[in-house]
Protein backbone atom coordinates (compact mmCIF):
# COMPACT_ATOMS: atom_id res chain seq x y z
CA UNK A 1 0.00 0.00 0.00
CA UNK A 2 1.84 3.05 -1.23
CA UNK A 3 -0.62 5.76 -0.45
CA UNK A 4 1.07 8.86 0.85
CA UNK A 5 -0.25 10.38 4.00
CA UNK A 6 -1.53 13.58 2.39
CA UNK A 7 -3.60 11.48 0.09
CA UNK A 8 -4.93 9.40 2.97
CA UNK A 9 -5.79 12.52 4.96
CA UNK A 10 -7.71 13.98 2.06
CA UNK A 11 -9.74 10.82 1.39
CA UNK A 12 -10.32 10.18 5.08
CA UNK A 13 -11.50 13.75 5.58
CA UNK A 14 -14.04 13.22 2.80
CA UNK A 15 -15.37 10.07 4.45
CA UNK A 16 -15.59 11.81 7.83
CA UNK A 17 -17.28 14.83 6.26
CA UNK A 18 -19.87 12.72 4.52
CA UNK A 19 -20.64 10.79 7.70
CA UNK A 20 -20.73 13.70 10.12
CA UNK A 21 -21.38 16.86 8.13
CA UNK A 22 -18.14 18.42 9.39
CA UNK A 23 -16.46 20.48 6.66
CA UNK A 24 -13.45 18.61 5.17
CA UNK A 25 -11.19 21.66 5.67
CA UNK A 26 -11.88 21.51 9.41
CA UNK A 27 -10.60 17.94 9.60
CA UNK A 28 -6.90 18.62 10.18
CA UNK A 29 -4.21 16.23 11.55
CA UNK A 30 -4.02 17.60 15.09
CA UNK A 31 -7.78 17.54 15.72
CA UNK A 32 -9.02 15.13 18.36
CA UNK A 33 -12.00 13.02 17.27
CA UNK A 34 -13.71 13.24 20.65
CA UNK A 35 -12.79 16.71 21.88
CA UNK A 36 -12.43 18.82 18.72
CA UNK A 37 -14.67 17.09 16.20
CA UNK A 38 -17.26 15.72 18.65
CA UNK A 39 -17.40 12.36 16.86
CA UNK A 40 -18.72 9.54 19.06
CA UNK A 41 -17.25 6.05 19.18
CA UNK A 42 -19.94 4.44 17.01
CA UNK A 43 -19.36 7.03 14.32
CA UNK A 44 -15.61 6.38 14.46
CA UNK A 45 -16.35 2.67 13.98
CA UNK A 46 -18.57 3.56 11.03
CA UNK A 47 -15.89 5.78 9.52
CA UNK A 48 -13.30 3.01 9.81
CA UNK A 49 -15.62 0.40 8.34
CA UNK A 50 -16.01 2.69 5.33
CA UNK A 51 -12.30 3.56 5.29
CA UNK A 52 -11.33 -0.10 5.16
CA UNK A 53 -13.23 -0.43 1.90
CA UNK A 54 -11.97 2.87 0.52
CA UNK A 55 -8.30 2.12 1.21
CA UNK A 56 -8.45 -1.64 0.75
CA UNK A 57 -6.99 -2.34 4.18
CA UNK A 58 -8.05 -4.15 7.32
CA UNK A 59 -7.76 -2.35 10.62
CA UNK A 60 -8.28 -4.21 13.91
CA UNK A 61 -11.14 -2.85 16.06
CA UNK A 62 -8.77 -2.64 19.04
CA UNK A 63 -6.53 -0.22 17.18
CA UNK A 64 -9.47 2.00 16.28
CA UNK A 65 -10.53 2.15 19.92
CA UNK A 66 -7.26 3.84 20.93
CA UNK A 67 -7.28 6.55 18.27
CA UNK A 68 -7.09 10.10 19.56
CA UNK A 69 -6.37 12.38 16.64
CA UNK A 70 -6.90 12.52 12.91
CA UNK A 71 -3.12 12.04 12.47
CA UNK A 72 -3.33 8.78 14.48
CA UNK A 73 -5.97 7.59 12.03
CA UNK A 74 -3.88 8.54 9.01
CA UNK A 75 -0.85 6.69 10.46
CA UNK A 76 -2.93 3.63 11.22
CA UNK A 77 -4.23 3.45 7.65
CA UNK A 78 -0.77 4.14 6.16
CA UNK A 79 0.75 1.30 8.18
CA UNK A 80 -2.08 -1.18 7.72
Amino acid at each position, binding site marked *: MALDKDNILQQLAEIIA*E*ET*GIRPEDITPTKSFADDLDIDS*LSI*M*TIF*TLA*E*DAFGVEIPDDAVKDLATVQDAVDLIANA
Partner: protein
Amino acid sequence: MSAAPSATDPLTVVTGLGATTPLGGDVETTWQAVLAGQPGVHALSNTWPEDYGIVTNFAATLKVPAHSVLTGPELRRADPSAQYALIAARQAWADAGAPDVAPERLAVVIASGIGGLHTMLTAWDTVRDRGARKLLPLTVPMLMPNSPAATVAIDLAARGGAHAPVSACASGAEALVLASRLIQQDLADVVVAGGTEAAIHPLTLGAFGRMRALSTRSDSPETASRPYCVTRDGFVMGEGAGALVVESAAHAHARGARVHARLAGVGSTSDAYDVAPPDPTGQGQIRAMRSALRQAGPAVARAVAHVNAHATATPAGDTIEARAIVEALTEALGSRQRAEAVKVSGTKSMTGHLLGAAGAVESIFAILALRDRLAPPTINIQELDPEVTCHVVRDQPEPLPATGPLAVMNNAFGFGGHNMALVFATA
Protein backbone atom coordinates in the same frame (compact mmCIF):
# COMPACT_ATOMS: atom_id res chain seq x y z
CA MET B 1 -47.45 23.72 33.40
CA SER B 2 -50.37 24.99 31.42
CA ALA B 3 -53.70 25.84 32.96
CA ALA B 4 -55.14 22.67 34.43
CA PRO B 5 -57.52 21.03 31.98
CA SER B 6 -60.92 20.06 33.27
CA ALA B 7 -60.75 16.75 35.05
CA THR B 8 -63.31 15.09 32.83
CA ASP B 9 -62.66 16.29 29.31
CA PRO B 10 -59.58 18.29 28.45
CA LEU B 11 -59.92 19.38 24.85
CA THR B 12 -57.38 18.09 22.37
CA VAL B 13 -56.61 20.12 19.29
CA VAL B 14 -54.43 19.81 16.20
CA THR B 15 -52.17 22.80 15.60
CA GLY B 16 -49.63 21.52 13.06
CA LEU B 17 -49.62 19.36 9.94
CA GLY B 18 -46.72 17.89 7.98
CA ALA B 19 -46.41 15.28 5.26
CA THR B 20 -44.33 13.89 2.48
CA THR B 21 -46.31 11.69 0.11
CA PRO B 22 -46.44 10.29 -3.42
CA LEU B 23 -48.40 13.42 -4.38
CA GLY B 24 -46.16 16.09 -2.90
CA GLY B 25 -43.31 16.94 -0.58
CA ASP B 26 -45.59 18.89 1.76
CA VAL B 27 -49.17 19.06 3.00
CA GLU B 28 -50.58 21.76 0.70
CA THR B 29 -49.09 20.32 -2.51
CA THR B 30 -50.39 16.89 -1.57
CA TRP B 31 -53.86 18.18 -0.71
CA GLN B 32 -54.21 20.17 -3.94
CA ALA B 33 -53.23 17.04 -5.89
CA VAL B 34 -55.82 15.04 -3.94
CA LEU B 35 -58.55 17.58 -4.71
CA ALA B 36 -57.49 17.51 -8.38
CA GLY B 37 -57.79 13.72 -8.42
CA GLN B 38 -54.19 13.15 -9.44
CA PRO B 39 -52.93 9.57 -9.41
CA GLY B 40 -49.66 9.06 -7.51
CA VAL B 41 -49.19 5.46 -8.65
CA HIS B 42 -46.76 4.61 -11.43
CA ALA B 43 -44.80 1.72 -12.89
CA LEU B 44 -41.46 1.05 -11.19
CA SER B 45 -38.38 0.97 -13.39
CA ASN B 46 -36.39 -2.04 -12.31
CA THR B 47 -35.84 -5.67 -13.26
CA TRP B 48 -37.74 -7.16 -10.32
CA PRO B 49 -40.22 -9.08 -12.50
CA GLU B 50 -37.38 -10.86 -14.36
CA ASP B 51 -35.11 -11.17 -11.32
CA TYR B 52 -37.62 -12.20 -8.69
CA GLY B 53 -40.91 -12.97 -10.41
CA ILE B 54 -42.57 -9.83 -9.02
CA VAL B 55 -46.07 -9.53 -10.48
CA THR B 56 -47.05 -6.11 -9.12
CA ASN B 57 -44.24 -3.89 -10.29
CA PHE B 58 -45.93 -0.55 -9.62
CA ALA B 59 -46.31 1.61 -6.53
CA ALA B 60 -46.70 5.17 -5.28
CA THR B 61 -43.23 6.43 -4.44
CA LEU B 62 -42.39 9.74 -2.76
CA LYS B 63 -42.87 12.76 -5.01
CA VAL B 64 -39.92 14.60 -3.43
CA PRO B 65 -37.13 12.18 -2.51
CA ALA B 66 -35.71 12.43 1.01
CA HIS B 67 -32.21 13.07 -0.32
CA SER B 68 -33.34 16.40 -1.74
CA VAL B 69 -34.60 17.51 1.70
CA LEU B 70 -32.23 16.14 4.35
CA THR B 71 -28.46 16.52 4.77
CA GLY B 72 -25.97 13.76 3.97
CA PRO B 73 -25.31 12.86 7.62
CA GLU B 74 -29.07 12.86 8.37
CA LEU B 75 -29.63 10.45 5.51
CA ARG B 76 -26.73 8.20 6.47
CA ARG B 77 -27.81 7.80 10.07
CA ALA B 78 -31.48 7.03 9.45
CA ASP B 79 -33.47 4.37 7.63
CA PRO B 80 -35.74 5.86 4.95
CA SER B 81 -38.71 5.30 7.31
CA ALA B 82 -37.06 7.59 9.89
CA GLN B 83 -36.01 10.06 7.19
CA TYR B 84 -39.61 10.48 6.01
CA ALA B 85 -40.82 10.84 9.61
CA LEU B 86 -38.22 13.54 10.24
CA ILE B 87 -39.33 15.48 7.16
CA ALA B 88 -43.02 15.32 8.12
CA ALA B 89 -42.41 16.08 11.80
CA ARG B 90 -40.29 19.15 11.07
CA GLN B 91 -42.99 20.47 8.76
CA ALA B 92 -45.70 19.87 11.36
CA TRP B 93 -43.59 21.53 14.03
CA ALA B 94 -43.01 24.61 11.86
CA ASP B 95 -46.70 24.69 10.89
CA ALA B 96 -47.59 24.74 14.59
CA GLY B 97 -45.35 27.76 15.04
CA ALA B 98 -42.56 25.83 16.81
CA PRO B 99 -44.45 25.74 20.14
CA ASP B 100 -42.68 26.98 23.20
CA VAL B 101 -43.16 23.96 25.45
CA ALA B 102 -41.14 22.45 28.27
CA PRO B 103 -39.20 19.48 26.81
CA GLU B 104 -40.59 17.25 29.58
CA ARG B 105 -44.14 18.11 28.45
CA LEU B 106 -43.41 17.37 24.79
CA ALA B 107 -43.95 13.78 23.65
CA VAL B 108 -43.58 11.95 20.35
CA VAL B 109 -45.68 9.11 18.96
CA ILE B 110 -44.44 8.04 15.55
CA ALA B 111 -45.53 4.71 14.18
CA SER B 112 -44.43 2.50 11.37
CA GLY B 113 -46.17 -0.59 10.08
CA ILE B 114 -43.08 -2.46 9.00
CA GLY B 115 -40.03 -0.60 10.33
CA GLY B 116 -36.51 -0.29 8.98
CA LEU B 117 -36.91 -2.84 6.21
CA HIS B 118 -34.32 -1.39 3.81
CA THR B 119 -31.67 -1.15 6.53
CA MET B 120 -32.38 -4.68 7.69
CA LEU B 121 -32.19 -6.23 4.25
CA THR B 122 -29.12 -4.26 3.18
CA ALA B 123 -27.41 -5.33 6.40
CA TRP B 124 -28.32 -8.96 5.71
CA ASP B 125 -26.77 -8.65 2.23
CA THR B 126 -23.59 -7.36 3.89
CA VAL B 127 -23.40 -10.18 6.45
CA ARG B 128 -24.15 -12.86 3.90
CA ASP B 129 -21.78 -11.56 1.21
CA ARG B 130 -18.96 -9.95 3.18
CA GLY B 131 -19.18 -11.08 6.78
CA ALA B 132 -20.34 -9.51 10.04
CA ARG B 133 -17.25 -7.33 10.36
CA LYS B 134 -18.46 -5.19 7.46
CA LEU B 135 -21.74 -4.31 9.19
CA LEU B 136 -22.10 -0.63 10.01
CA PRO B 137 -22.32 -0.02 13.76
CA LEU B 138 -25.60 1.91 13.48
CA THR B 139 -27.41 -1.01 11.82
CA VAL B 140 -29.58 -1.90 14.83
CA PRO B 141 -30.52 1.67 15.84
CA MET B 142 -31.48 2.29 12.22
CA LEU B 143 -33.60 -0.82 11.65
CA MET B 144 -35.54 -0.92 14.92
CA PRO B 145 -39.20 0.08 14.59
CA ASN B 146 -38.92 2.80 17.24
CA SER B 147 -36.18 4.50 15.24
CA PRO B 148 -38.50 7.05 13.56
CA ALA B 149 -39.97 8.03 16.96
CA ALA B 150 -36.51 8.30 18.52
CA THR B 151 -35.14 10.27 15.57
CA VAL B 152 -37.97 12.79 15.80
CA ALA B 153 -37.72 13.03 19.59
CA ILE B 154 -33.98 13.77 19.34
CA ASP B 155 -34.57 16.34 16.61
CA LEU B 156 -37.24 18.19 18.61
CA ALA B 157 -35.63 17.58 22.02
CA ALA B 158 -38.84 15.95 23.20
CA ARG B 159 -38.28 14.44 26.63
CA GLY B 160 -41.86 13.64 27.63
CA GLY B 161 -41.77 10.12 26.13
CA ALA B 162 -41.30 8.76 22.62
CA HIS B 163 -43.61 5.97 21.57
CA ALA B 164 -43.91 3.74 18.53
CA PRO B 165 -47.22 1.89 18.35
CA VAL B 166 -47.20 -0.87 15.77
CA SER B 167 -50.51 -2.04 14.34
CA ALA B 168 -49.81 -2.64 10.65
CA CYS B 169 -51.86 -0.33 8.46
CA ALA B 170 -53.57 1.21 11.51
CA SER B 171 -50.26 2.34 13.05
CA GLY B 172 -50.43 6.00 11.99
CA ALA B 173 -53.96 6.30 13.35
CA GLU B 174 -53.01 4.52 16.55
CA ALA B 175 -50.30 7.15 17.03
CA LEU B 176 -53.07 9.76 17.11
CA VAL B 177 -55.15 7.63 19.48
CA LEU B 178 -52.22 7.50 21.89
CA ALA B 179 -51.43 11.19 21.42
CA SER B 180 -55.00 12.05 22.33
CA ARG B 181 -54.76 9.93 25.47
CA LEU B 182 -51.46 11.53 26.49
CA ILE B 183 -53.17 14.91 26.33
CA GLN B 184 -56.39 13.69 27.96
CA GLN B 185 -54.42 12.20 30.85
CA ASP B 186 -52.39 15.39 31.19
CA LEU B 187 -49.12 13.52 30.54
CA ALA B 188 -48.05 16.06 27.91
CA ASP B 189 -48.99 19.51 26.65
CA VAL B 190 -47.85 18.88 23.08
CA VAL B 191 -47.45 15.61 21.18
CA VAL B 192 -45.94 15.22 17.73
CA ALA B 193 -47.78 12.20 16.36
CA GLY B 194 -47.91 10.41 13.06
CA GLY B 195 -46.86 7.49 10.94
CA THR B 196 -44.23 6.65 8.40
CA GLU B 197 -43.49 3.90 5.92
CA ALA B 198 -40.71 3.17 3.49
CA ALA B 199 -41.22 -0.44 2.50
CA ILE B 200 -41.46 -0.62 -1.26
CA HIS B 201 -39.19 -3.57 -1.93
CA PRO B 202 -39.42 -6.86 -3.86
CA LEU B 203 -39.89 -8.63 -0.52
CA THR B 204 -43.05 -6.70 0.39
CA LEU B 205 -44.40 -6.56 -3.16
CA GLY B 206 -43.85 -10.31 -3.36
CA ALA B 207 -45.25 -11.13 0.07
CA PHE B 208 -48.35 -8.90 -0.11
CA GLY B 209 -48.80 -10.34 -3.58
CA ARG B 210 -48.79 -13.87 -2.19
CA MET B 211 -51.62 -12.81 0.15
CA ARG B 212 -53.49 -11.69 -2.97
CA ALA B 213 -53.74 -8.31 -1.26
CA LEU B 214 -52.12 -6.31 -4.07
CA SER B 215 -53.59 -5.17 -7.35
CA THR B 216 -51.99 -6.90 -10.32
CA ARG B 217 -53.22 -4.37 -12.90
CA SER B 218 -49.80 -3.88 -14.47
CA ASP B 219 -51.22 -2.65 -17.76
CA SER B 220 -52.64 0.41 -16.03
CA PRO B 221 -50.84 1.32 -12.78
CA GLU B 222 -52.45 4.79 -12.58
CA THR B 223 -55.94 3.27 -12.38
CA ALA B 224 -54.98 0.18 -10.35
CA SER B 225 -55.95 1.63 -6.96
CA ARG B 226 -59.75 1.69 -7.31
CA PRO B 227 -61.58 1.57 -3.98
CA TYR B 228 -65.32 0.75 -4.20
CA CYS B 229 -65.08 -0.18 -7.89
CA VAL B 230 -66.59 -3.56 -8.85
CA THR B 231 -63.34 -4.48 -10.58
CA ARG B 232 -61.02 -3.58 -7.66
CA ASP B 233 -58.38 -6.25 -7.17
CA GLY B 234 -56.30 -5.17 -4.20
CA PHE B 235 -54.28 -2.27 -2.89
CA VAL B 236 -51.27 -0.50 -4.35
CA MET B 237 -48.25 0.07 -2.12
CA GLY B 238 -47.26 3.61 -1.30
CA GLU B 239 -44.69 5.26 0.93
CA GLY B 240 -44.38 8.47 2.89
CA ALA B 241 -45.09 10.01 6.25
CA GLY B 242 -47.58 12.25 7.97
CA ALA B 243 -47.21 14.06 11.29
CA LEU B 244 -49.58 16.16 13.37
CA VAL B 245 -48.95 18.42 16.30
CA VAL B 246 -51.57 17.45 18.86
CA GLU B 247 -51.93 19.83 21.76
CA SER B 248 -54.10 20.51 24.77
CA ALA B 249 -56.54 23.26 23.92
CA ALA B 250 -55.44 25.17 27.02
CA HIS B 251 -51.81 25.14 25.91
CA ALA B 252 -52.68 26.07 22.32
CA HIS B 253 -54.92 28.87 23.51
CA ALA B 254 -52.33 30.24 25.93
CA ARG B 255 -49.74 30.59 23.19
CA GLY B 256 -52.23 31.97 20.67
CA ALA B 257 -51.81 29.04 18.28
CA ARG B 258 -53.87 28.59 15.16
CA VAL B 259 -56.06 25.51 15.60
CA HIS B 260 -56.69 23.32 12.55
CA ALA B 261 -59.28 21.13 14.24
CA ARG B 262 -60.31 19.49 17.48
CA LEU B 263 -59.38 15.86 17.86
CA ALA B 264 -62.77 15.21 19.37
CA GLY B 265 -62.85 11.45 19.69
CA VAL B 266 -60.72 8.37 19.24
CA GLY B 267 -61.65 4.71 19.11
CA SER B 268 -59.47 1.63 19.11
CA THR B 269 -60.67 -1.97 19.05
CA SER B 270 -59.38 -5.37 18.02
CA ASP B 271 -61.25 -8.02 16.05
CA ALA B 272 -59.70 -11.08 17.74
CA TYR B 273 -60.76 -12.82 14.56
CA ASP B 274 -57.83 -13.43 12.21
CA VAL B 275 -54.31 -12.14 11.68
CA ALA B 276 -55.05 -11.28 8.04
CA PRO B 277 -58.68 -10.66 6.92
CA PRO B 278 -60.98 -8.38 8.95
CA ASP B 279 -63.97 -9.79 10.78
CA PRO B 280 -66.53 -9.98 7.94
CA THR B 281 -69.28 -8.69 10.23
CA GLY B 282 -67.32 -5.45 10.70
CA GLN B 283 -68.22 -5.45 14.41
CA GLY B 284 -64.72 -4.39 15.47
CA GLN B 285 -64.76 -1.50 13.03
CA ILE B 286 -68.23 -0.44 14.12
CA ARG B 287 -67.18 -0.49 17.78
CA ALA B 288 -64.12 1.66 16.99
CA MET B 289 -66.26 4.25 15.19
CA ARG B 290 -68.94 4.21 17.91
CA SER B 291 -66.30 4.65 20.56
CA ALA B 292 -64.78 7.66 18.79
CA LEU B 293 -68.22 9.18 18.16
CA ARG B 294 -69.26 8.61 21.76
CA GLN B 295 -66.15 10.35 23.07
CA ALA B 296 -66.79 13.22 20.67
CA GLY B 297 -70.26 13.63 22.15
CA PRO B 298 -73.68 13.81 20.49
CA ALA B 299 -73.34 17.34 19.15
CA VAL B 300 -70.14 16.55 17.28
CA ALA B 301 -71.37 13.11 16.21
CA ARG B 302 -74.46 14.68 14.64
CA ALA B 303 -72.21 17.04 12.65
CA VAL B 304 -70.24 14.25 10.92
CA ALA B 305 -70.56 14.91 7.18
CA HIS B 306 -67.46 13.23 5.74
CA VAL B 307 -65.44 10.05 6.28
CA ASN B 308 -61.96 9.49 4.94
CA ALA B 309 -62.32 5.73 4.74
CA HIS B 310 -59.64 3.10 5.06
CA ALA B 311 -60.84 1.83 1.62
CA THR B 312 -57.70 0.08 0.39
CA ALA B 313 -59.42 -1.44 -2.69
CA THR B 314 -59.29 -5.03 -1.51
CA PRO B 315 -62.42 -6.88 -2.66
CA ALA B 316 -63.60 -7.87 0.85
CA GLY B 317 -62.29 -4.93 2.90
CA ASP B 318 -64.09 -2.09 1.13
CA THR B 319 -67.58 -3.56 1.44
CA ILE B 320 -67.12 -4.59 5.08
CA GLU B 321 -66.05 -1.05 5.95
CA ALA B 322 -68.77 0.60 3.85
CA ARG B 323 -71.43 -1.37 5.74
CA ALA B 324 -69.74 -0.64 9.06
CA ILE B 325 -69.65 3.12 8.34
CA VAL B 326 -73.37 3.21 7.59
CA GLU B 327 -74.21 1.18 10.68
CA ALA B 328 -72.05 3.28 13.04
CA LEU B 329 -73.30 6.57 11.59
CA THR B 330 -76.95 5.51 11.57
CA GLU B 331 -76.81 5.50 15.34
CA ALA B 332 -74.92 8.81 15.52
CA LEU B 333 -77.02 10.68 12.98
CA GLY B 334 -80.37 9.22 13.94
CA SER B 335 -81.32 7.64 10.61
CA ARG B 336 -79.96 5.32 7.98
CA GLN B 337 -80.85 7.84 5.29
CA ARG B 338 -78.63 10.47 6.90
CA ALA B 339 -75.83 7.94 7.39
CA GLU B 340 -75.99 7.03 3.71
CA ALA B 341 -75.65 10.70 2.76
CA VAL B 342 -72.34 11.19 4.58
CA LYS B 343 -69.66 11.80 1.97
CA VAL B 344 -67.13 8.98 1.98
CA SER B 345 -63.76 9.32 0.22
CA GLY B 346 -61.13 6.73 -0.61
CA THR B 347 -58.01 8.81 -1.11
CA LYS B 348 -55.81 5.72 -1.44
CA SER B 349 -57.07 5.75 -5.02
CA MET B 350 -54.53 8.55 -5.49
CA THR B 351 -51.85 8.08 -2.83
CA GLY B 352 -51.73 4.31 -2.84
CA HIS B 353 -51.65 2.62 0.54
CA LEU B 354 -49.07 4.22 2.82
CA LEU B 355 -49.42 1.33 5.31
CA GLY B 356 -48.22 2.64 8.71
CA ALA B 357 -48.38 6.23 7.46
CA ALA B 358 -51.89 5.94 6.03
CA GLY B 359 -53.81 6.80 9.21
CA ALA B 360 -51.74 9.92 9.79
CA VAL B 361 -51.76 11.20 6.21
CA GLU B 362 -55.47 10.51 5.82
CA SER B 363 -56.23 12.22 9.13
CA ILE B 364 -54.50 15.24 7.65
CA PHE B 365 -56.77 14.93 4.60
CA ALA B 366 -59.80 14.71 6.89
CA ILE B 367 -58.71 17.86 8.72
CA LEU B 368 -58.16 19.72 5.44
CA ALA B 369 -61.59 18.57 4.24
CA LEU B 370 -62.94 20.14 7.43
CA ARG B 371 -60.98 23.35 6.80
CA ASP B 372 -61.97 23.68 3.14
CA ARG B 373 -65.43 22.16 3.71
CA LEU B 374 -64.74 19.98 0.73
CA ALA B 375 -64.70 16.17 0.57
CA PRO B 376 -61.92 14.90 -1.71
CA PRO B 377 -62.66 12.59 -4.61
CA THR B 378 -62.18 8.86 -5.02
CA ILE B 379 -60.74 8.25 -8.47
CA ASN B 380 -60.70 5.18 -10.70
CA ILE B 381 -64.23 3.98 -9.96
CA GLN B 382 -65.46 2.76 -13.31
CA GLU B 383 -68.52 1.10 -11.85
CA LEU B 384 -69.48 1.50 -8.21
CA ASP B 385 -69.83 -1.80 -6.37
CA PRO B 386 -73.60 -2.15 -5.79
CA GLU B 387 -72.87 -3.59 -2.33
CA VAL B 388 -71.46 -0.23 -1.30
CA THR B 389 -74.42 1.69 0.07
CA CYS B 390 -72.58 4.65 1.58
CA HIS B 391 -72.30 7.82 -0.51
CA VAL B 392 -68.94 7.64 -2.26
CA VAL B 393 -67.42 10.90 -3.51
CA ARG B 394 -66.32 10.16 -7.07
CA ASP B 395 -63.97 11.96 -9.46
CA GLN B 396 -64.67 15.51 -8.24
CA PRO B 397 -64.60 16.99 -4.72
CA GLU B 398 -68.02 17.52 -3.15
CA PRO B 399 -68.92 20.42 -0.87
CA LEU B 400 -69.58 19.84 2.82
CA PRO B 401 -72.04 22.06 4.75
CA ALA B 402 -70.74 25.59 4.22
CA THR B 403 -71.54 26.91 7.70
CA GLY B 404 -72.08 25.69 11.21
CA PRO B 405 -70.35 23.00 13.24
CA LEU B 406 -68.76 20.30 11.12
CA ALA B 407 -67.12 17.00 11.95
CA VAL B 408 -65.26 14.37 9.94
CA MET B 409 -64.00 10.88 10.66
CA ASN B 410 -60.95 8.92 9.59
CA ASN B 411 -60.76 5.13 9.71
CA ALA B 412 -57.65 2.98 9.64
CA PHE B 413 -57.54 -0.79 10.00
CA GLY B 414 -54.56 -3.12 10.11
CA PHE B 415 -53.66 -6.76 9.63
CA GLY B 416 -54.10 -8.42 12.98
CA GLY B 417 -57.57 -6.93 13.36
CA HIS B 418 -56.58 -3.48 14.65
CA ASN B 419 -59.36 -0.93 14.15
CA MET B 420 -58.89 2.81 14.71
CA ALA B 421 -61.38 5.63 14.22
CA LEU B 422 -60.68 9.32 14.76
CA VAL B 423 -63.22 12.15 14.83
CA PHE B 424 -62.10 15.70 14.07
CA ALA B 425 -64.37 18.71 14.53
CA THR B 426 -64.35 22.42 13.94
CA ALA B 427 -62.74 24.15 16.90
